[in-house]
């Protein structure tokens, strides 16, 4: 029982990082109905810039965090400009495929430019604490708190501000939004920058707890964020949070009881079960296939 609860705690902590990744993902998907496979790799670019700032400029944790987030935003806007801006409405598949190409481009660039591949990433906080029989890590608590705060913040932005309403108006009816005076292009770019910034925070916190960054981080971030988002429901903020936490707990339990080889399999079984029984995800308003046809929520 103690093991099960400790696994659950660990899972929630890891899940918080998935939730953050899913949050950025779902923001892009929610607004543009576009799948951005380059989401993780653009966070990786930010992370490398962060680690370089650490190695060469002796930046502290806050400095590294700032550089990582800024780098992720710049790389995210690069992806937006190349893959999403030129694609007309209805060309969702073309945009997704080109974002896959940019993924490969960013990953190969990281491998070529940084031959050591694995770079140290400055840890944020390594303190641990015992709560009764349970072990807690400070950096993971920070991760959980960040996930909750950012999810609440994004939710408040989407539902309580004029910017959020503009984004939701664009989701509902892009043409009408443009014709009532919303600058759709600018709102889209801002949403993309915001999503990338959330991803940058996620990347920084994950890497600070792993203490290293490799070119594979991009793929890892895309996969975890994508799976968590699909479990929770495309375009749903609470869904991103719950999907991420659930994925983390299922992974942690299966790693303990089934072994590390079966951990990823368990995650895919969870996703599969979700797609069979609730095609729109736990909090999704519409099944994936409807969204793929471009129908609005």
């Amino acid at each position, binding site marked *: 029982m103690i093991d099960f609860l400790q696994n659950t705690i660990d899972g929630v902590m890891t899940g918080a990082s998935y939730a953050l990744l899913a949050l950025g993902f779902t923001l892009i998907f929610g607004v543009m109905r576009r799948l951005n496979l380059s989401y993780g790799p653009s966070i990786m670019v930010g992370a490398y810039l962060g680690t370089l700032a650490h190695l060469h400029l002796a930046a502290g944790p806050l400095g590294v965090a700032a550089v990582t987030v800024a780098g992720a935003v710049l790389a995210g806007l690069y992806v937006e400009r190349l893959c999403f801006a030129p694609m007309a409405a209805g060309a969702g598949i073309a945009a997704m495929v080109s974002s896959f190409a940019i993924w490969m481009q960013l990953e190969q660039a990281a491998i070529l430019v940084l031959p050591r591949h694995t770079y140290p990433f400055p840890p944020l906080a390594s303190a641990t604490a015992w709560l009764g029989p349970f072990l807690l890590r400070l950096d993971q608590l920070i991760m959980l708190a960040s996930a909750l705060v950012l999810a609440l913040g994004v939710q408040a932005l989407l539902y309580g501000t004029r910017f959020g309403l503009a984004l939701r108006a664009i989701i509902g009816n892009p043409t009408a939004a443009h014709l009532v*005076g919303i600058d759709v292009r600018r709102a889209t770019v801002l949403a993309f920058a915001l999503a990338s910034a959330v991803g940058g925070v996620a990347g920084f916190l994950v890497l600070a707890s792993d203490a290293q960054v490799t070119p594979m981080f991009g793929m890892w971030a895309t996969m975890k964020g994508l799976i968590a988002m699909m479990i929770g429901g495309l375009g749903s903020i609470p869904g991103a949070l719950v999907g991420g936490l659930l994925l983390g707990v299922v992974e942690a339990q299966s790693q303990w009881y089934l072994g590390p080889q079966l951990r990823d399999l368990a995650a895919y079984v969870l996703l599969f079960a979700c797609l069979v029984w609730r095609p729109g995800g736990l909090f999704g308003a519409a099944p994936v296939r409807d969204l793929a046809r471009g129908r609005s929520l």
Partner: protein
Amino acid sequence: MLELRRLTKYFGGVRAVDGVDLTVAEGEILGLIGPNGSGKSTIINLICGLFPLTDGEVVFRGTDISTLPPHERVALGIARTFQNIRLFGQLTVWQNLWVAQKARGQGRGFLRGWLGGSRHDRVAIDKTLDFFDLGHKRDELAGNLAFGEQRRLEFARAFAAKPSLLLLDEPAAGMNAEEIDQLDARIRQLRREGVTIVLIEHHVELVMSVTDRIAVLNFGQKIAEGTPAEIQTNPLVREAYLGTQTAA
């Protein structure tokens, strides 16, 4: 105020609008009538920039706006309603006006523009809702409104952008006689407040009652222009439109 010069739009081989010259004077209500498919809605779409012109110019207050994107034309003071209602169904009635509202003093700053808006702006939305008799529905989702209410909300949302030129695309479609009377009164009230209006409408009584001038389109070309009285007696118009469409 608005001048269309040799306005032309082809869709493939179809000449939807074919060299139309039209001038709208400040403060007037211009009716735009014609049989279905004569190009009325296309002209509205071209004025607000939904798609590019094939040829010609749209001149607003002396400047050529033919290549401006739609949201910049709204910022200049051109707002519209849609023939097939295009509300934001997942937003509330109040929010539909809020996203479309032009903040006072052109406060294009990030905080003013994107985060909220002043108390004055919020009061203005409430006033607009009351004017369109939607005050009691302010917190309902637009998608849940009855048809007539949705039409009024379309009109209210266009008005929230504080336009100097308002383009109404069949605002009376599907309305009953009482609702049309209210619409007539609202259009007159807006004109008193200095809004210039272009009205596309099939409801002949409304057009004849409320407009100062009427332009008649047929097959993408302007075939007549004049006061309601002149249009009613114009033989070309009778042949193309009134004679066939409204036997009553």
